[in-house]
């Protein structure tokens, strides 16, 4: 598949504000915070990449670099074939960035007036502008509220207007920075449906969705990259990333007479737990076939054996806790 976004050893340090003491005693010494470290990322055209990570992991910094709002300290980022530092104008023509920053609108203008202003700055004028605004207002369900001042919008409406602004120019790439943050569960669900139906299914755009809502990522994304402390720990197609857990949970149903069998005694069983149904056992292992063989050799009957699929949350917890790195090549 063709990559539409690529980063090569992308690194970002933010300067720290110096104290008066530091200014006097060591005026030339640099004081910096690492935000991104050698990030190598590939985003396939038409995919929806979930950029997952805890707070402060570097998700927003990465999105800001891709949208030319922050320059990297070293390394390179290429968006739609254009370098984010040297070809900022071309990059901005390819992307729509949606932040949860309510302050990025003019509060005493209506939703429509805000969109008219930003449409003009994105080279949309006259009939084309009006049509585009009507389309995104319809898509975001804000048609009836478009003539209310932005300050009177609810949080969910502000968020939807931010998405409408990002879609104004019908960009090839949409960068969504935590679009459901600070929304209640109902509005979050509505927002996810909106993203899935209008942006992903209908428009088939390439999307990067920065979030720490794993359910959201699992529901929407085809690919995932997990970032921690500025480093990409793992990335790849959703299903492949899920397979990085080599020891998996299995649910086994044994014949009635074998329920007292001590499964723990078999080699390869890492953990055993009782399922909600007492006739079922759940075991964690890397070698399910060996264990089934041992059970059969003991004379028991295995009536059912199913793999319990790990959730994205399981994967996320595992990689964040281990902080181990799995190379992209292994997964892609």
């Amino acid at each position: 598949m063709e990559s539409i976004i690529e980063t090569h050893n992308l690194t970002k340090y933010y300067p720290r504000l110096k104290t008066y003491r530091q200014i006097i005693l060591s005026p030339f010494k640099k004081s910096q915070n690492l935000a991104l470290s050698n990030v190598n990322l590939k985003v396939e055209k038409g995919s929806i990449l979930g950029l997952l990570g805890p707070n402060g992991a570097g998700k927003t910094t990465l999105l800001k670099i891709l949208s030319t709002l922050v320059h990297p300290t070293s390394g390179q980022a290429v968006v739609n074939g254009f370098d984010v530092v040297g070809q900022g104008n071309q990059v901005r023509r390819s992307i729509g960035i949606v932040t949860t920053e309510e302050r990025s609108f003019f509060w005493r203008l209506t939703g429509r007036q805000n969109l008219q202003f930003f449409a003009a700055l994105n080279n949309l004028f006259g009939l084309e502008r009006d049509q585009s605004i009507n389309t995104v207002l319809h898509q975001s369900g804000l048609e009836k509220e478009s003539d209310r001042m932005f300050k009177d919008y609810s949080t969910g409406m502000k968020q939807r207007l931010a998405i409408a602004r990002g879609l104004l120019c019908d960009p090839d790439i949409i960068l969504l920075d935590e679009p459901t943050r600070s929304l209640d569960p109902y509005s979050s669900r509505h927002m996810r449906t909106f993203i899935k139906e209008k942006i992903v299914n209908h428009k088939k755009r390439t999307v990067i969705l920065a979030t720490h809502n794993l359910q959201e990522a699992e529901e929407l994304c085809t690919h995932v990259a997990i970032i921690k402390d500025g480093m990409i720990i793992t990335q790849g197609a959703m299903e492949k990333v899920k397979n990085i857990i080599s020891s998996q949970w299995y649910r086994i149903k044994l014949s009635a007479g074998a329920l007292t069998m001590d499964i723990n005694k078999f080699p390869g069983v890492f953990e055993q737990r009782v399922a909600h149904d007492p006739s079922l056992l759940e075991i964690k292992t890397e070698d399910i076939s060996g264990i089934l063989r041992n059970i059969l050799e003991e004379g028991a009957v295995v009536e059912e054996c199913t793999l319990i699929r790990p959730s994205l949350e399981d994967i996320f917890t595992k990689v964040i806790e281990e902080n181990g790195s799995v190379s992209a090549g292994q997964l892609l």
Partner: protein
Amino acid sequence: MMFLRKALAFLKKDLLNEMSYKLAFIMQVFGIFLSVTMFYFLSLMFGKSSLPSLAQYGGNYFAFVLIGIAFSNYLDVSLSSMSRKIREGQMMGTLEALLATQTGLTTIIVSSSLYSFLFTSLQVFVYLIIGVFMYQLDLSQANYLGGIIVLLLSILAFSGFGILSASFIMVFKRGNPVAKIFSGLSWLLGGIYYPVEILPQWLETCSLLLPITYSLQGMRLALLKGASLSELLPNILSLLAFTLIMLPISLFVFRYAVGRAKRDGSLTQY
């Protein structure tokens, strides 16, 4: 064409925004009337005494100071409107949203101050109208074309310093030495309240380094004495020189400042 349409979008946005603050808007308009009245009473105090240095502008202090105050508004706006807009953008968070669009830096910085210039022009117009109809300001000999040329060049020359000042705000967020120093010196030496000829010789020489000196002198000669374009030429050329030197330098510095803010990741910090 594209620039004009974008500039109009900025103008419309700022007008809608300002008009939504109704009390502040009305107070701004009311303030113009108060200032004119204050200067009229000042002129009554000085009216009978004649200053030889005012003779070249017709000898009327009210006319002298009204032109000085009215057109020094352009200095204030040029110096402060761009940096104020940058600061507002940092505080409100709109700066990042503007820079994420397909509009160039120069268009953004220039267009963001258009409303202030337009409002100042309205202010100056009202100053002059009140001056003429209520306080017998004599503009019967005025060379309006000359006045407009001097005005446009003054705005361009002042804007160079304004863009420099916006660059400081972009990087340092607060603290604006360019505006402070340039504005202070202009008010002190530029001939706003008094003719530069009354200054000690060395200070009068210093005043020649400030564009406001040429701007106000040209404006007074054009409006009060009806000076021809050839008589205004020294002022026009001086303002042109300031423009040609300062504008490219300031745009270069502003571009550097935005790059620096992007490297620091501080576009929306304040």
